């Protein structure tokens, strides 16, 4: 197990370095000049050249990358070109809102998804089941930005129950979390339904029913906990999709997280920030996958340690 973990951790580190390289290459190809961005519209050629030199933009590609990597290995993500601040500081200030949003999004998708999945499984092959499954399809097919704008329109603009956008109070969190979770809810609903159906057919559940226990009790005490585990384990894999989601949701709701930070940075070719956010997001995805794999391992020891 320890050897497996060590190997996986090493592999993850290599993946992150690979991602840093791919992103660096792509940003290197961007048809815009960061030195000119910094220098502004009134700069002389000499100023621009100077900035280029100070930032090492005149160095050959490999040297620039190695410099970046060197910093990265020491946990230094560099300085923002435009905001003139440590990328670490910027990300640190933007990460809590994003993490909060993600946590709330996960809570929302699980709460909705699991409820729908359990109901559908228990009422299998009824109108309710069919209706809920259509709902879950709608969930995975709805563009997040449309869901977001619709929720704002109905619940914030029209009914006035929630703030239109922004950050700060629990009320601000509700609509963005629902928007972020809506997509996943559809997916979890379908997974939970099939997981429940598997469990409901297993012997111990039948035994419990045969012993005369009430249906609700059997479902809640026996079936649900067993069906839940494999579904919960998927949350780790879900991180990647959530990461894409927060870019959109933060843009729609004006949420001051890393998605918004990245989007603004791309508009202004603030390369250190784009690099930093990409790596932080990739890190979260890698860790999520790792946790999912380890959980799967505990649940099913037969899985080969490959």
């Amino acid at each position, binding site marked *: 197990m320890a050897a497996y973990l060590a190997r996986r951790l090493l592999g993850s580190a290599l993946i992150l370095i690979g991602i840093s390289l791919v992103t660096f290459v792509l940003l290197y190809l961007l048809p*815009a000049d960061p030195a000119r961005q910094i220098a*502004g*519209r009134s700069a002389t050629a000499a100023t621009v050249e100077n900035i280029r030199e100070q930032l090492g933009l005149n160095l050959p590609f490999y040297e620039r990358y190695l410099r970046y990597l060197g910093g990265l290995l020491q946990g230094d993500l560099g300085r923002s070109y435009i905001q003139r601040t440590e990328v670490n500081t910027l990300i640190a200030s933007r990460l809590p809102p994003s993490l909060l949003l993600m946590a709330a999004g996960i809570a929302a998708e699980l709460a909705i998804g699991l409820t729908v999945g359990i109901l559908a499984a228990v009422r299998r092959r009824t109108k309710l089941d069919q209706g809920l499954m259509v709902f879950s399809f709608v969930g995975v097919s709805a563009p997040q930005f449309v869901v977001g704008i619709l929720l704002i329109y109905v619940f914030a603009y029209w009914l006035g129950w929630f703030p239109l956008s922004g950050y700060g109070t629990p009320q601000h969190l509700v609509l963005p979390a629902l928007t972020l979770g809506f997509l996943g809810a559809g997916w979890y609903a379908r997974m939970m339904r099939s997981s429940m159906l598997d469990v409901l057919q297993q012997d111990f559940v039948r035994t419990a029913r045969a012993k005369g226990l009430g249906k609700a009790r059997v479902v809640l005490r026996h079936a649900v906990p067993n069906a839940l585990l494999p579904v919960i384990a998927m949350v780790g894999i879900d991180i990647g999709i959530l990461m894409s989601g927060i870019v959109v949701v933060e843009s729609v709701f004006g949420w001051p997280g890393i998605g918004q930070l990245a989007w603004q940075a791309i508009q202004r070719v603030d390369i250190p920030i784009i690099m930093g956010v990409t790596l932080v997001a990739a890190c979260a995805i890698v860790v999520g996958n790792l946790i999912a794999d380890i959980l799967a391992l505990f649940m099913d020891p037969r899985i080969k340690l490959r």
Partner: protein
Amino acid sequence: MKKWLLAGAAAFLLSGPAMTLVTTPAHAQVKQGGSMTVTYKDDVSTLDPAIGYDWQNWSMIKSLFDGLMDYKPGTTELVPDLAESYEISDDGLTYIFKLRQGVKFHNGREMTAADVKYSLERVVNPATQSPGAGFFGAIKGFDAASAEAGTALEGVTAVDDATVKIELSRPDATFLHVMALNFAHVVPAEEVEKYGADFGKHPVGTGAFKLAEWTLGQRVVFERNADYYHEGLPRLDQIVFEVGQEPIVALLRLERGEVDVAGDGIPPAKFLETKNDPKFKDMIVEGSQLHTGYVTMNVKMPPFDNLKVRQAVNMAINKDRIVRIINGRAVPANQPLPPLMPGYDESYEGFAFDPAKAKALLAEAGFADGFDTELFVANTDPQPRIAQAIQQDLAEIGIKAAIKSLAQANVIAAGGEEDQAPMIWSGGMAWIADFPDPSNFYGPILGCGGAVPGGWNWSWYCNEELDARAVKADSMADPSQADARIEEWKKIFTAIQDEAPWVPVFNEQRFTIRSDRLAGPDGIFVDPVHIPVHYDYVYAKDAQ
């Protein structure tokens, strides 16, 4: 000192037609106190006067720091500020500034001539990476100081604690404007050194306000500088800037009285509704700004090397319709300079909208069937929409312009290449003057100096004869020549427009919305230099 203050008050009362709803008590009777809340969507990037160069932090910095020169509130008229007075030598090459005495930095130390010298050297020092370094090119020794970090700026001397002498290598009629730029604002060396590159997050100046709190991504709070040298200023005790607020939310909160100024203005989508709503009538202040939105035509890329083609494009674009598309938040333009700018030629007629004549001109130029080209535009609303309106107008006369809607940085990069962008719609990146002088609208965007790789002269128009005239105009530094100089600039700009490297499309109007808690002369709510409002002069009615 008193004299200037009085002059400032007089300017208030004269500042024009926008003064109708002023219920202002006379200047001296305004009580200090109260607080206001200003919202922005974007985070404040930096408050370092040597670095900050966006319209949001520009006026915030002006309230934290001061320069030798400033403008009368609500106007574009220069007045000494940290300087008490100044003298210009007859050859226009030496400026001697007498400093105001007893001005203190927020850290309590008295400001002296050495601080002025330090600040100017810092801004041209390449290690500072200031986007404003280029403005100081006229100061003697600029080339050496900007080439190597740590080199002293030869032309700036602290004669004694209260006197600064600045020598120029060439006469520069805009020099006093340059001294009013944020980049020339005075910073204390010890604080800059203490915070290093993070000075922008820990600003310490001499200004009317000082920084009290900064929570990244959420809020910035200014509080009154009790030691401020202008008596009675600032009027407010505190300004709270809340960031991350969508303009539309800001507007609703303003309606509810939670916000006093919507920093990003009235969102376009709500503009008509708000403007036509009687309850907002007294809360909106309209004013002009030093802005022109234009289309550049790259004269190095055929067929735009042909004057007739450029003139045809000028006649093809229906500016009134574009103004209608943006709900009348602008006025159509016919020349590069905005009407507010000295040198604007009211009698100039430019090219009137006339598609038939445009088509004829195109035919004369040998493009009876039109041609294919590209129109670059920044990809933030409403710019792509305006570009599509232009595209349709061009299609009327046979020019098929494909739209390239890209991130702003990519458009700027393409414009700075000789052979990349045949046409660019400048919206979102457009020139808003750094200072109210026609010179600032020429060099970088229409002169030969800007027509270099990476430059901002995206039409790559370079007329050496006009360049020579521009240099000559800017060397008319003697105040007695000021009118003649402006007259010359007027001629230069109309001469350029006859050559049609641009299509000047419109001049944006400003519509500031503020809660009825706030008061002050209207001029400070549409101040041409302080956007969105002149923070120092706003006062709270509830503190009266």
